[in-house]
């Protein structure tokens, strides 16, 4: 099976600090992957590079069947290619209703003129209701996003990501600040999503990662330290050293 995303030998330096060092990473079309690593391992920078926020000093990021290089594209272009990203802090548009938030994220023509004359079709409205049901916000469609609880905002953001219908979902610490029940629901949403697309989850919480039950990539000092099942990598000597300190 060909890979959806192939990251080859990327490096990036900030003021002499090598945040990412010759990192390579692959993920298939419908796969759930967790990335773990201590603070400063380069997890967020890695996401920044894939989504076009940061330009690497070297290396390539190849995408899709055509293996197009994503480096040099801007964030909006990459998002339109089918990469969705969820930030650590829930970022939804608090001044707008849940429905508006979802409508904005729906996969449609993103050009200014098209958006200006755009009217929601029945299909669009159905999709919004479906998504709202999926993230458990059916009753909150008319509410302002700012009024939601922290966990609801996280789900709304995931819902918006799903509405984009991305081929690859990058999720940064989705479980942070959630109650145990909320975590469970989040796990379900992510596992479900990974059935039809690639999902990369960055997470600190081992318990949460274990529940995802997927292949794990360990990052350390900007490069891949180990890869495999959670049990496999946690048995790795190097990984233990990194996490527990030498």
């Amino acid at each position: 099976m060909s890979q959806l995303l192939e990251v080859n030998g990327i490096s990036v330096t900030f003021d002499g600090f090598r945040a990412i060092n010759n990192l390579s990473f692959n993920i298939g079309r419908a796969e759930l992957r967790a990335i773990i690593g201590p603070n400063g391992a380069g997890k967020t920078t890695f996401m920044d590079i894939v989504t076009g926020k940061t330009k690497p000093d070297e290396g390539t990021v190849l995408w899709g069947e055509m293996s197009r290089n994503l480096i040099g594209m801007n964030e909006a272009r990459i998002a339109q290619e089918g990469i969705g990203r969820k930030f650590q802090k829930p970022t939804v548009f608090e001044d707008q209703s849940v429905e508006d938030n979802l409508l904005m994220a729906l996969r449609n023509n993103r050009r200014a003129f098209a958006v200006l004359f755009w009217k929601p079709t029945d299909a669009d409205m159905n999709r919004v209701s479906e998504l709202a049901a999926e993230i458990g916000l059916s009753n909150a469609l008319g509410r302002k996003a700012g009024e939601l609880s922290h966990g609801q905002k996280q789900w709304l953001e995931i819902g918006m990501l799903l509405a984009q219908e991305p081929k690859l979902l990058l999720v940064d610490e989705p479980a942070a600040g959630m109650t145990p029940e909320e975590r469970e629901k989040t796990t379900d949403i992510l596992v479900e999503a990974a059935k039809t697309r690639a999902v990369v989850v960055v997470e600190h919480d081992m318990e949460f990662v274990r529940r995802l039950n997927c292949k794990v990539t360990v990052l350390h000092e900007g490069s891949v330290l180990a890869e495999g099942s959670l049990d496999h990598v946690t048995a790795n000597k190097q990984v233990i050293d990194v996490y527990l300190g030498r």
Partner: protein
Amino acid sequence: MLKRLLVIVLAAVCLATLAKAQDAATQATDDLGPMQQVLQEHADLIVESSRRTIGPAIDAVANSGLEAAQTVLEVWQARDMYQRIEDGLFFAAEETGDDIFTLTDFDTGVVVGEVPDDALEQIKPNSGIRSLIGTALVSFQLNDPDRAKRDEAISSLERRGNAELLTPLRNSIDGEPDPALKERKMRVERLMTITYDPDEDARIEAIEEMAGDLGVDVRATLNPLVATTIRVFPDGNVPADLNIAREVEPGSEELPVAEAYEMLDGPPMVSSDDLRATLQDNIVDGRVGGIPVAELFDPERREAAYGALVDAGTIPPRPTAEEAAQAVEDATFVAVYAEPNPAITAAANRALGKIDTNVGLNQFLDLGLDALSLGSIYFLAAIGLAITFGVMGVINMAHGEFIMMGAYTGYVVQQIIPNHTASIIVAIPLAFAVTFAAGVAMERLVIRWLYNRPLETLLATFGISIALQQLAKNIFGTQARPLTSPDWLGGSVVLNDVVSISTVRIAIFVLALVFLCVFLFIMKRTRLGLETRAVTQNPGMAGAMGINPGRVNMLTFGLGSGIAGIAGVAIGLYAQVTSEIGQAYIVQSFMTVVVGGVGNIWGTLLGAGLIGALHKGIEWFNPSNTLAAQTYMIIFIIIFIQFRPRGIIALKGRAAGD
């Protein structure tokens, strides 16, 4: 018969009288001093006092070789020479009492006596004569033992040379004891040689010697040599003896075709205005040349009407455009030097070429100094902003008004303390205190409620800015108030005739350097600087470590504002103090900080330098238009930010935040 007899008798009597007078004069001359004799010889000329005829009299005195000659000329020039009516003798006279004059003899220098003014006739040389006397005097003064007189004589030669004084000047050089005056004498001698020496080689040598000299006097001497006039030779035969600079092409900017045609004495061209006037003069029964006036809005019909008038013989024919062009084509136009000697003009041109190159280089240096001082002013205006905006991230649109407050503080202090030096010394700390207090008040009352809301800070400080501006207008009025710099800042440092810089600007430059050091010291070496940086980077953490962020912010903001106040005093010395003085600098100040790179004082320094250089550079291309310079500068900055959005010195990496 009787009549004839009478004439003869009369003539005889006259002759006798004349002879008697002659005798008396001859007899008198023997008793008189040598100078009085010279004067008496030319008494008529002296008394008559006409610029055209006085020459021989002055020459006689000047060339008499007598010691008294200089005194006579000086007294004469000062209108202190009087003639005693009784015997026609000349004396230096001084009014010592009420209408009583004391007479001094020229030859002996002895006081001859006191006489009432009605016994004397004052010799009143007009200004023309006095300048001739002055010229004659110069040759004496050049050797005068009094240094001031020699100085004056040289200055007089520098202003206006004179062919006849060339030799006296040369003779005076060797005997000149004062080295500075000697140098000036030699320089004037060279310049006068260029203009007046009859010997061609000497002139050329002098020209070549002065080549590359930056003095305005050299250019003033050389430029008349290469001045040209355009002359026309209708048949194309240019006389060979003319010193021709170049041929002039009609139709060039120097000589438009119409002007060229006017130089040929052909029949005049008819302009469209003339044509219209002619037609107007020849309206007959509502028609001109048979064409109804109503049709004459059409240029072609006008031509036709004019043609009809010519055909009818009413008016003379005019040359057609082709004829005029042909006439101009046939003629030769040349620019001719006023100086007939080609070797001289060639040498002068070469020398001027060298001077131009040299002047260009020095102008560049001068421009660089100008840019540096303008950059210093921008830096001064921006450094306070570099603290409040650059370090704290607070947009203070009232920063310009703090500059204004500083400037007005300086003005008020000057009203109270008249001594300029003392008032500046008092004004600087006072301006700091006033604006520091204003800054602290503003931070406590407004800004601290708006941290992390930059746009709202911007708006609120706008409000303060317009209120402060209007307040200043209400208090001080709209007219500009002068802030006079002390005398020791009044002059300028002159390197040569091209490069000079006013002392105020040097002082501002020094002040800018001092501020830079103070800023670096406070930020890097003091507790306040450390706390400021800590609070800026992480207020929560800083607070946890026992730093009071409110206090630090207040002090830092006060410091930035206080520096703006001092900058205001400095800027007030250099520009007029009005309520809008801050407005003139606020945009440039923000540009300076943004272009340099926010949060980095070296960036601000570079930004100020860049903007100053740019401003002066653009002004140099279009010196008449400072508005355009500002316009283009801002456009340049907008484009610059395209390429370095974070300024010249940018913070990099994740530390810069996202």
